[in-house]
């Protein structure tokens, strides 16, 4: 039975911790914005090949940066189960008369809200410095893609957290999972020019569809059709959430 109360209090806990960790909030905005600033300046005047000569690099980059930030935040939210295990709080969560599915949903709700706040803030800041979006409807579409990106990677983070004992392996995950997912997602450059085998990896990277979907919504330029992006990402998201919940259920609390 899904316990709505439990989901709420787990969400509330994430929110309180988020608001109190000022340095984390700054970090999650600073990195993407610095990326945007420096990459944008470095490539200023560059037009995206294959775009029909219409899209300048910063415009192309912004959805990619949003995706990047959310990838990191979401993975971390999923893996944060390990912090709770390390500091003992996981036992308090697991000893409660609440089923594991509700616990997973609570963590996803909390992490997704955090990532969504980040994504929307970056978008708003981009708009303040000149990024134009077509309208409210398109903004809402972008938010839907943000939500799906968040849930997908929180799920993936949970899978890792359930298999790991402590934070020791986090470095490996950063380098061999998170960075490849980021670089091969089309965040920084279009995928068209990549060799076939690399492109194949991009096609199984959920972030590819998330960023592409945001591009389709916000700037009207994308590799795939927006419906395709949505359907594929929705499917991948469902799979990841299911796997995250499954492995979490199987893991021991002590």
């Amino acid at each position, binding site marked *: 039975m899904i*316990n709505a109360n439990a989901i709420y209090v787990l969400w509330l806990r994430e929110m309180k911790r988020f608001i109190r960790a000022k340095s984390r909030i700054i970090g999650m905005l600073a990195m993407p914005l610095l990326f945007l600033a420096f990459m944008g300046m470095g490539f200023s005047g560059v037009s995206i090949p294959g775009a029909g000569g219409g899209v300048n690099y910063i415009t192309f980059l912004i959805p990619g940066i949003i995706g990047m930030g959310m990838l990191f935040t979401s993975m971390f939210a999923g893996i944060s189960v390990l912090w709770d295990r390390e*500091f003992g709080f996981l036992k308090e969560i697991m000893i409660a008369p609440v089923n594991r599915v509700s616990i997973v949903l609570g963590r996803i709700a909390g992490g997704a809200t955090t990532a969504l706040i980040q994504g929307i803030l970056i978008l708003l800041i981009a708009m303040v410095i000149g990024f134009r979006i077509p309208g409210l409807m398109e903004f809402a579409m972008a938010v839907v893609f943000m939500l799906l990106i968040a849930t997908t990677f929180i799920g993936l983070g949970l899978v890792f957290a359930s298999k790991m004992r402590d934070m020791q392996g986090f470095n490996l995950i950063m380098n061999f999972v998170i960075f490849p997912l980021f670089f091969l997602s089309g965040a920084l450059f279009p995928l068209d020019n990549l060799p076939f085998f690399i492109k194949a990896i991009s096609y199984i990277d959920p972030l590819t569809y998330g960023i592409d979907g945001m591009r389709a919504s916000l700037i009207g330029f994308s590799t795939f059709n927006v419906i395709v992006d949505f359907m594929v990402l929705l499917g991948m998201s469902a799979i990841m959430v299911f796997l995250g919940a499954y492995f979490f259920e199987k893991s021991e609390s002590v």
Partner: protein
Amino acid sequence: MIMNAIKVENLTKKFNGFTAVDSISFAVESGELFGLLGPNGAGKTTTINMLSTLLKTTSGYAEVAGVDVSKSTNDVRKSIGIVFQEPALDNKLTGRENLEFHGMMYGMAAGERRKRIDEVLALVELTDKEGMLVEKYSGGMKRRLEIARGLIHRPKVLFLDEPTLGLDAQTRRHIWEYIKKLNKEAGVTIILTTHYMEEADYLCERIAIIDHGKIVALDTPKKLKDVLGGDVVCLDVEGDAAKYMQYVKSLKWIKNAKIHDGELCLTMDQGEKRIPELVCKAPKMGVNIRSVSLRKPSLEDVFLHFTGKTIREQEAGQNGFGREMMRIRAGRGHGM
């Protein structure tokens, strides 16, 4: 009305071939203050983890508040509170927020929750600290907060895993008093694990002595000490120890005589009255007594009696064994 708060039959837990808990059986009555006493690594925490449904049992049966732990885990969880060995608090939340979290996870309605939290905070005297972030709490305050938390949902059984580990003597005394008060006033069945003998002696109505995953003795502290037969007088003797030993064994008021740690340890009643005689007779037997000690029976001696080692020696000798066990545990799961 459930007579037994806890019933355990042949409970066993194995980790990768290592048997941490070896077919133990015991029962705890409703409202009892029961202790599991043993050195680190004896299997106390593992037992608690199984009874509180955090770990699955390997074999055997365990029932808490009338519910089979392997069948209805959520029903068990609703009836128990637990204070873990290591703190399980969220340092980034305040004391009150930690309690609110707990209350909500246990499905308490807002009004009742607020009232109950006020109550438990008053019980452990943390009312004025409720708005402080837990990371600023001292070790004793954290432990008290966790005891308060364990009680919010009015559990039938409260598990305390090494409740005063790492605390200073004064805080320990306070926590002992809370525990006693809890048990008497609220009628909560309390199971505590400890490796501190004086704690088990002071608090528990009955104690199960556990060593290497097995229960070696189970009774009231008094009856356990009665097994020893009396006071223990230890003599550091030089000279013809064998002759003296013979003499000593012939005395009818000597209940037991053995050599431990190079000393002659004799069991008798009212040791303080017998020492003069033992010391005066020694020169006639050709021995010189270098030192005398008198110990009233303690659980340390009881442990020694049943396992052949004191708890301290048990833990010291664990360097190879204990580390091996930790390694196996680390591969299996996170610590104790």
